[in-house]
């Protein structure tokens, strides 16, 4: 076996790395597909808030059930839903706008989570929930990831048309008989589920990168929603796996390495994309100016 082969295949020889790759590919794909909706519906702030608000749910679950995965799952889900509903309640019942109530609620929820974890009877490493630990994925974590992908992906695919109409112009969608409120709720639900599946792998802070970067990157290349959806999934999957490999070679924290790698790819796309890249745009300007001037030359 050549040196290159051993370098490329070495990571796959360990069982913990095989698990990590499997988990990475799945959450990378699911989060990547979802990222199309987050980018287009401008849900990035909302997603951030939801991710942080998972923490008190986890803390309360640990206080009640200990570290059982099912308990953690339920706790995170309930906490995210309470913050989402609370935000809606405050913004509808008063003159406080949605971003204000969202920002306030998630900061409070996050603080509550940290306070609760500090008094938890079991010793809990806070950084584990903030940044995840993809190399320590247990079988139960993989099952949760698998099950959530199996719910979220078919849901998004089945509802693609109405979701597409709603994202482009909610009021027209509503006028065409689409129940925008219910659809929005489903989308947020899918978002929360997907976050929970990523929790063990990359944590509540870093999951945001996986939920935004892939579609943001593809958005710089394409004018098709289908490309954004599937492309986001594929890019997310590849980036996650490559980021994980890099972290293994360089011996760096894996979750951060994945998100950082996504950021670097995005930056490259931002500069070099042939359609919407900064570099190509600045070059094209000169070109078009000559064409524009040519209009008068022809008529002379």
């Amino acid at each position: 076996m050549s040196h290159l082969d051993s370098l490329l295949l070495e990571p796959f020889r360990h069982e913990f790395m095989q698990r990590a790759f499997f988990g990475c590919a799945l959450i990378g794909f699911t989060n990547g597909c979802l990222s199309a909706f987050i980018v287009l519906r401008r849900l990035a702030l909302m997603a951030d808030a939801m991710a942080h608000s998972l923490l008190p749910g986890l803390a309360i679950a640990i206080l009640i059930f200990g570290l059982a995965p099912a308990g953690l799952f339920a706790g995170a889900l309930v906490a995210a839903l309470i913050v989402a509903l609370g935000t809606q309640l405050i913004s509808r019942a008063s003159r406080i706008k949605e971003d204000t109530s969202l920002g306030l609620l998630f900061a409070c929820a996050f603080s509550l989570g940290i306070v609760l974890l500090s008094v938890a009877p079991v010793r809990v490493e806070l950084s584990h929930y903030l940044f995840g630990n993809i190399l320590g994925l247990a079988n139960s974590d993989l099952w949760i990831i698998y099950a959530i992908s199996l719910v979220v992906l078919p849901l998004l695919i089945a509802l693609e048309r109405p979701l597409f109409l709603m994202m482009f112009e909610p009021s027209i969608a509503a006028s065409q008989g689409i129940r925008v409120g219910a659809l929005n709720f489903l989308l947020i639900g899918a978002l929360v589920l997907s976050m929970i599946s990523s929790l063990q792998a990359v944590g509540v802070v870093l999951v945001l990168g996986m939920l935004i970067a892939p579609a943001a990157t593809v958005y710089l290349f394409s004018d098709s929603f289908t490309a954004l959806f599937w492309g986001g999934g594929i890019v997310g999957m590849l980036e996650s796996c490559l980021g994980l490999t890099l972290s293994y070679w360089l011996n760096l924290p894996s979750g951060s390495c994945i998100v950082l790698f996504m950021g670097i790819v995005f930056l490259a796309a931002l500069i070099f994309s042939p359609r919407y890249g900064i570099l190509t745009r600045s070059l094209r300007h000169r070109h078009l100016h000559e064409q524009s001037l040519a209009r008068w030359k022809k008529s002379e």
Partner: protein
Amino acid sequence: MSSHQLSIRDLTISYHRIPAVHHLNLELHCGRCIALLGPNGAGKTTFFKALVGLIKPETGSISFGDGGGALHRDIAYLPQREQVDWDFPLTVRGLAEMGRYTRLGWWRRFGQSDRAAVDRALATLELTDLADRQISALSGGQQQRAFLARALAQEAHVLLLDEPFNGLDRPAQALLSEAMHRIVAEGNLVIVSHHDLKTVPELFEQVIFLNGELIAFGDTAATFTEANIEKTFGTPAFAGMPHRHRS
């Protein structure tokens, strides 16, 4: 097709129980191009929203044709240009294809007849050459026509246009009005909220004067008079006290 009509009976629409449009009665026939005129706050947009079912009327009813069939398939609403996210990853063809979704529902395959309807709509609005452009890479007039193409692909019979001529220059206005009249000639009903009174006689066959109440409705030649304009625009919009309606 021209026997189709949009019947509005005793329509009252309220926000927080303050009526914006009171007891409206109108019979509008297909194959006409109608201007909806009134000052700001007269309830033009509110009226449109009620027609497409975005606001539930407080009293009265809206029906199209023989009254059967879903209203939302027959009526297409074109929003004001400022309300649209033009950076959305969508081409002109993609926008027209969206119109078919109302007919196809959630899952049915996009077939040959759907493609033909989209091509036809793009051709009618002279957008075939621009079909693969992203929607922000269009001029204002082209954007309006792209939305009209979507309504045509939907095979809607009633098109509600909210201030489509706003901000368009003369050539773009002429193109849009040409497209509008082609749609009308196919037997559709086009209702346009409009505020540039100078262009009303050349663009529209009928006018509706609205200011909370229906002031006047009829053929442009007979109804578009100084007296009606003064009555509609010389009176401030109604903001009044909430009052109850028996339904």
